């Protein structure tokens, strides 16, 4: 439990609050486990091999095939096969109807968040309803930035001249933090984005009020 509390943090990828981050975190734990086993095993093998015994011959081919081909081959195949679906939450699949489309325009060193269907603009803040996917469209007016809310999902760059899209979803109400994740100049370190997930009714109420406000 100490480990779990050590995992939490406003920008932690290990404290997921949305399906995308959760699926990725799960694969991470498996990969970490396998990596620990393999590295401990290989290091132990090397240290064992360094024992200054008398000459021991034979079975050289087994090392090469078993360790060199089979071990990585099987591990990689397993990772690709079992892990492939972890990314499905991030793609804005054509058939999926999002709750909202949100335009996030990045510029040095702020986020301009626009709700095109509702004619609403926020600065450095994004709000979304809990439990439904929203489509975030990223763009930039100056240099490359990157939109990233680690507790909800992976990042997507904001590239001048392009509009890219990802799917974002929060499973619990709360306040999450985003941060620009592509070096964009002197203000890069201080370019946060506050993401607030609200229960659907609360969100509708907030939306209505925000649109009316000047």
């Amino acid at each position: 439990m100490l480990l779990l509390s050590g995992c939490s943090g406003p920008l932690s990828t290990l404290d997921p609050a949305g399906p995308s981050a959760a699926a990725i975190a799960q694969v991470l734990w498996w990969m970490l486990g396998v990596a620990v086993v393999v590295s401990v095993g290989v290091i132990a093998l090397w240290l064992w091999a360094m024992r200054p015994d008398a000459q021991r011959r034979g079975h050289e081919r087994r090392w090469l095939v078993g360790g060199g081909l089979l071990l990585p081959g099987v591990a990689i195949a397993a990772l690709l096969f079992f892990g492939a679906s972890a990314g499905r939450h991030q793609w804005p699949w054509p058939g999926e109807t999002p709750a909202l489309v949100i335009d996030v325009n990045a510029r040095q060193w702020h986020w301009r968040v626009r709700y095109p269907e509702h004619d609403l603009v926020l600065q450095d803040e994004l709000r979304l309803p809990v439990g439904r996917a929203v489509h975030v469209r990223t763009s930039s007016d100056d240099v490359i930035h990157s939109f990233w809310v680690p507790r909800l999902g992976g990042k997507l760059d904001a590239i001048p001249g392009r509009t890219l899209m990802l799917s974002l979803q929060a499973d619990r109400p709360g306040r999450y933090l985003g941060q620009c994740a592509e070096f964009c100049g002197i203000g890069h370190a201080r370019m946060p984005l506050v993401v607030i997930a609200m229960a659907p009714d609360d969100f509708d109420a907030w939306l209505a009020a925000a649109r009316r406000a000047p």
Partner: protein
Amino acid sequence: MSSPGQLADGSGGPPDAAALHAEFERVWGNPRGWRALTIVNHSVVALRFMVTGLVFFVLAGLLSMLMRVQLARPGQQVIDAETYNQAFTAHGTMMMFLFAVPVLQGAAAYLLPKMLGARDLVFPRLSAFGYWCYLFGGLIFCAGLALGLAPNAGWFMYTPLSSDVHSPGPNSDFWLIGITFVEIATMAAGIEIAVSILRTRADGMALHRMPIFAWAMLVTSMMIVFGFPPLILASILLELERAAGWAFFDPTRGGDPLLWQHLFWLFGHPEVYIIFLPAAGMVSTLVSVHAQRPLVGYSWVVVSLISTGFLSFGLWVHHMFTVGIPALAQGFFAAASMAVAIPTAVQVFAWIATLATGRPRWNPPMLWLAGFLATFVLGGLTGVMLAFVPFDWQVHDTHFVVAHLHYVLIGGMLFPLFAALYHWLPLASGRMASPRLARLGFWLSFVGFQGTFLVMHWTGLLGMPRRVWTYDSGMGWDWPNLVSSVFGFVMAFGVAATLLDLALHWRFGRKAEPNPWHADTLEWAVGQPPTSYNFASLPPIDSRHPLWEQPQLQSAIAAGDFELPRAAHGRRETLGSDPVSGRPREVIHLPGNSVLPLLAALLLSAMCIALLARFYWPALAAACATTVVLLRWSWENCAHPKAAAGEAFDLPKGLALHSRTFDGPGLWGMGLTMAANAALYASFVFGWCFLWLVAPAWTPPAKAPLDVWTLPAATGAFIAGWALLRQLSGRLQHGVDQGLGLRLLAAAACGAAGCAVLGKALAGATLAPTRSAHDAMLAFLLVYLLLHGALAVLLALLQAARVRHGHVGLQAPYEPGVVAILWLFVVGVTAVAWVAFGLLPTALAGQG
């Protein structure tokens, strides 16, 4: 009766070992004082590369200490954001370009001729020139740092941040100009090492008997030939955008910031394997020697090295998983990026098997190799994790990647380098280092490294991005950063202790016995420290382990028992070999000391400084002066009196001096240089197609700026010139030399016609390179074709002049074939231009 090699005092018989040594020293000896600046000998130049590289390493390391101090606590202002940005950019740039590759190339340049049974590398003046370009380019870069004008856009210089709009001022220019200057050295060394490995091996050293380190460097050098040009092209294009406003990467003018990323990573991924493979070759060598048995799975390891080399060119997009590339493409690159772990795993288990079935000892090199294994395997595993795309979406651009890259670079390059230094220093200096200081240095470095970077994976998983000069408390990043910073100092002490040990041993180390590690390859037979000429006579070999088969080989070599055992003729020479079988084909004569490499490098530095300051006329003048010096250098070649004029009477039976044959190092060097050039051109054509298909605001003009006949006409003119050159080479092979000069002049005339056509098109076309990427690409193409056509014409004219002077003819028929390769390249690029820039747009426009 006197024999050709008899001494002047008339004493009978060949000289003894001591007299032979004196004879060779007269020809090969290195001067002291100011004249030491003219040294071209590979051992000296290679050591210069390595020492200079280690100095840059220390400088870049100090920058990282500054960064760690700043990051030790949240919210600190030990240095401000701008300084921090310059620090991390310079740290990465210096480590990658001014330390890692040059030091490994230096080690290769030092060791390979000795391992292969040769006396020097094949282009000695080029080695020296490469060193000066490296030194001066590095100094120019550091000058930027000293002036507070270091580049500050990250070591991969992403656009648009690095463009003139968002990075005004000369900072990014220091990177683009300084580092491209240094890359001349990298390219030169890469081409030279590849040719040397292929063409100057001992009699009987077929490819399957080559030392494994030679295989590693052969693959690495070919990777350099194809991997660096995309970056060189990108740097030229970006500098043109910054200095002249030409639109390549600006999305508002038809360019694309992603083009920079593709070109950069097309270089960037092979680059990290260019850094790892030499180290892997060193590990294979050391493991075999220190386990006192041949490497297990030699063929497996060779295949692994080659497949890693090829695979590494197909992975670059894994640095771009967050830019919105389609899912299928991401999946392909993910699978390929994981697959490259397989050849690496084969090598790891070959090493383990060698140790397990040998008799290993825990001496300083093996200590560092254990550290390498523990560290590099971890780094490789986090690499496989990063190749898994969804995970990369989370940790890309966080400190998790910083941890990974330091694990593979420090674990995979620095630790093997220290192991190699401890292993081969007894060869270079004749002394042993101190085991105590070595152990202290290792443990401090190893523990310090793990303490710094292991926790950094955690920091990244907790969300700390890269390249942030400070951070707020409450993110969970406070204690991991403090741990990293404290252990960073431990590691710094360890590295300092190690470097101190290596430096001090040169004076205070105890004398080493001959071949102290009981190694098997030829470099241990050249003396400790080595003579300037390596081998008094060149031995044949018939196994992979010459010194294990014949432990007394060194004294037989020194006594002159084998080939090319005399130097009284005054020539520097080594055996030229068949690239596959290793059988001798000719005697390669090599140039001695010369000031021309230094002169050329100084003039190039003047050009670079002028470009930095944006004084373009002085830059042009310096470029012209450099060209003159380079042409003078090429003039003093082959049959020129300063090279090896006249008949040679004391050659082995059946072999001639290479310049009297139709093959030689220059042919291969020109071939590989054109291969590199082709890689640059192919990157350019890729960029054209990429922009055409994908750039956001690409607007081709309604009417094509080029006439439809320009490119085919130019191609035809160049084909005519090339055909003339091929014909005259063929005539020389049949012993006919009439009309040699005339044909060369006719070829030059054809080339001039081609250039005239291109020049007219450039002048006449209404191109606006500052307004549209389309026009910028076309303008660049025409200038590129024109410059290469002009070079071809110039070299043909020079050949005609050399015919007049008697340096080229029936007795020296070699050079026209070399020049013909350049002509063929010009034909190729012009023809491809016709298809890609002439026909393709018409076809695409026709469909649209």
